[in-house]
C-alpha cells in the first residue's frame, strides 16, 4: 500500500514546516515504484513524478494531515486532474446519423462494448442506434454482434462478409439515414497498431463515414505497451475518446493514466463486466484511488 510505504518515509516531514527537496526524494521514489507496479508507463511515470515534485515543493505541511497523507493528496489530485476532463458525447450536435467508430487491439472488448454502448445511448439519451459489424475476418464476429444485438433488442446491420469494411461502412451509413437511425455504432476488427494495411483500412473507414466519435477500446490490464498502442491509434485517426474495459478485475489500471497522458483524449466510459448493462461513465477519482492502492 502506497500510504503505508509513504508513512515510513515521510513521517519526518512533520515539524519541518515546508516540503523541501531534501525531504522529498524518498517519497517520490515510493510514488514512482507504486505507479510502475500499477502498470503506468515508465516515461509517463518520470514526467508525472517531476510534476508532483514541482507541486509539492514549497507547500506548507498542513497541520490536519500527516505528511504522508498530504503527499498522497498531492499525487491523487494530480492523477485526477490529468485523467479528468470533458467526457460528453457530442452527437446531439451532429446531423444524423451520428457515427461512433470503435477501434482497438484484438480482444480488447469492442464487439461487447458496441452492444453495451447501444443500450446505454438508447436508455440514457433516447437514441435509435444501429449496430454495424465491420469485422469480416474473425470467425463468427458478425454472428457475435447479431446475438448481442438480439439480447439488447437493438438492430444489427446485416453485414455481407464478402464485402470489404470500407464499403460496408459507407453502405450501412446510407442505410441508417434511409431507415431513420440517428446513431450508427461501428464494430471494427481488432488489429495491431503496427499493422500498416489494417491501420490504413481504419483511416479509410473514418474518411468515408466522418464519425462523430472515434473511440479506442482498450483493456484496463494493458501494461507498458499502452503508450505505443494509444499513440499510434491517436496519430492515425482522430480519436475523440477512450473506453477502458475489464475494469471489474483487480488490475490497478495504470494504463488509464498512460493513455490519457500520451493522447490527451478523455476516457469516456469503462466496461465493468460481461453483461450488456456493465458500462459506466468514467470517473477519474475512482481510477486514481485504484492506481495508488
Amino acid at each position, binding site marked *: 500500500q502506497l500510504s503505508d510505504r509513504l508513512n515510513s518515509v515521510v513521517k519526518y516531514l512533520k515539524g519541518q514546516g515546508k516540503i523541501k527537496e531534501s525531504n522529498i526524494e524518498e517519497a517520490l521514489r515510493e510514488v514512482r515504484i507504486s505507479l510502475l507496479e500499477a502498470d503506468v508507463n515508465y516515461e509517463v511515470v518520470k514526467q508525472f513524478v517531476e510534476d508532483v515534485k514541482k507541486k509539492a515543493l514549497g507547500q506548507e505541511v498542513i497541520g490536519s494531515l500527516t505528511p504522508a497523507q498530504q503527499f498522497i493528496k498531492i499525487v491523487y489530485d494530480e492523477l485526477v486532474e490529468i485523467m479528468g476532463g470533458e467526457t460528453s458525447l457530442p452527437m446531439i450536435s451532429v446531423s444524423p446519423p451520428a457515427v461512433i467508430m470503435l477501434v482497438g487491439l484484438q480482444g480488447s472488448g469492442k464487439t461487447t462494448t458496441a452492444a453495451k454502448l447501444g443500450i446505454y445511448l438508447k436508455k440514457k439519451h433516447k437514441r435509435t442506434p444501429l449496430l454495424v459489424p465491420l469485422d469480416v475476418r474473425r470467425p463468427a464476429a458478425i*454472428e457475435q454482434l447479431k*446475438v448481442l444485438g438480439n439480447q439488447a433488442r437493438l438492430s444489427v446491420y446485416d453485414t455481407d462478409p464478402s464485402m470489404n469494411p470500407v464499403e460496408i461502412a459507407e453502405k450501412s451509413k446510407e442505410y441508417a439515414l434511409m431507415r431513420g437511425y440517428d446513431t450508427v455504432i461501428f464494430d471494427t476488427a481488432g488489429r495491431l497498431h503496427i499493422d500498416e494495411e489494417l491501420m490504413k483500412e481504419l483511416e479509410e473507414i473514418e474518411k468515408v463515414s466522418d464519425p462523430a466519435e472515434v473511440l479506442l477500446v482498450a*483493456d484496463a490490464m494493458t*501494461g507498458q505497451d499502452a503508450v505505443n498502442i494509444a499513440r499510434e491509434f491517436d496519430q492515425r485517426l482522430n480519436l475523440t475518446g477512450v473506453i477502458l474495459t475489464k475494469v471489474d478485475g483487480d488490475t490497478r489500471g495504470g494504463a488509464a493514466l498512460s493513455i490519457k497522458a500520451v493522447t490527451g483524449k478523455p476516457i469516456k466510459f469503462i466496461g465493468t463486466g460481461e453483461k450488456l448493462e456493465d458500462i459506466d461513465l468514467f470517473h477519474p477519482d475512482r481510477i486514481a484511488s485504484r492506481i495508488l492502492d
Partner: protein
Amino acid sequence: LLRGEKISPEIYEELEAILITADFGVKTTQKLLSRVRVEAKERGISDPAALKNLLKEKILEILKSVPPHSLPDVKPLVIMVVGVNGTGKTTSIGKLGKYFIDQGKRVVFAAGDTFRAAAIEQLEIWAERVGARIVKHQEGSDAAAVFYDAIESAIHRGDDVVIGDTAGRLHTKVNLMDELRKVKRVSSRAMEGAPHEIWLVIDAVTGQNALRQAQEFNKTLGLTGIILTKLDGTAKGGIVVAIADELKIPILYVGVGEGIGDLKPFSPEEFVEGLFE
C-alpha cells in the same frame, strides 16, 4: 530503482528502462539488476555491451530454472485451456489443433464456452479449418458436461487429443473460478488423470495483472503450462519471467498472429533476444 555505484548509473538506468518497459515489473527488475551488479563486480564487467549480455544470461537463468515439460504419453491426451477474457484461448486452440493434426493425430475440440455470444460458432469454424472434430452442446449448457461428453467420445472413437475451450473469466470472480474447478473434476471422472494438461493463455500486452492471473488460476486448478499470445505486437510479455520465477510454470507456446500457423514452441533464447530489439 537501483542506486548503482560501481557501474555507470546511465547504463543501469538503460537496463532498468528495458526491463520495466518490457513489463518485467519492479520486483523482478530489481532482482535481475542486483544480480547483474553483484556478478559484474565479481567478473570485472563494466562495458555496456557485456553488461547487456550478462543481463540476458540472468534472465535465461530464470527461464531455464523451470523444470522441462513434455506431453504425457496418454490417449486421449486431454488439454484444458483457460484464461481471462479475450486473451486468445479459442484461436490458440484452433492453432494447437492444426499443430497436432499435422503430426498425424486425431483431434477433437470440446466447445466448453457455453456462455459467450457465438463462442461455439467461432470454435466450430476453427474445427472445420483444421480438420478437427467438435463436441458441443446448447449455448447456456453446462461446460463440465461438454468436457465429459468430449472425453468419453474421444475414448470411444480412439481420438488422440482432446482440447477443451472454456469461457474467458476474470480470476477475481469466485463462482466462475469454481466452475473451472468443476470442469476439472468432472473431466477426471470421464477419464482418470484428465485433464492431463491445464494451460493458461496470457495476452503479451497484459501488464502486472498477468502474474495475478497466473497465481489465481494456478491456485484454483494447478497449471501445467502457459501460452503467451499476441507477441507479434510491440509488447514484450516480460511478465512471464516473473511467472517463471515465482510459480515455475513452463511457457510452452507463443502466438504470433491470427492465422492458423501462427503458433510456435516457446524458445527462451529467442524470447530474450526479442527483449533487446
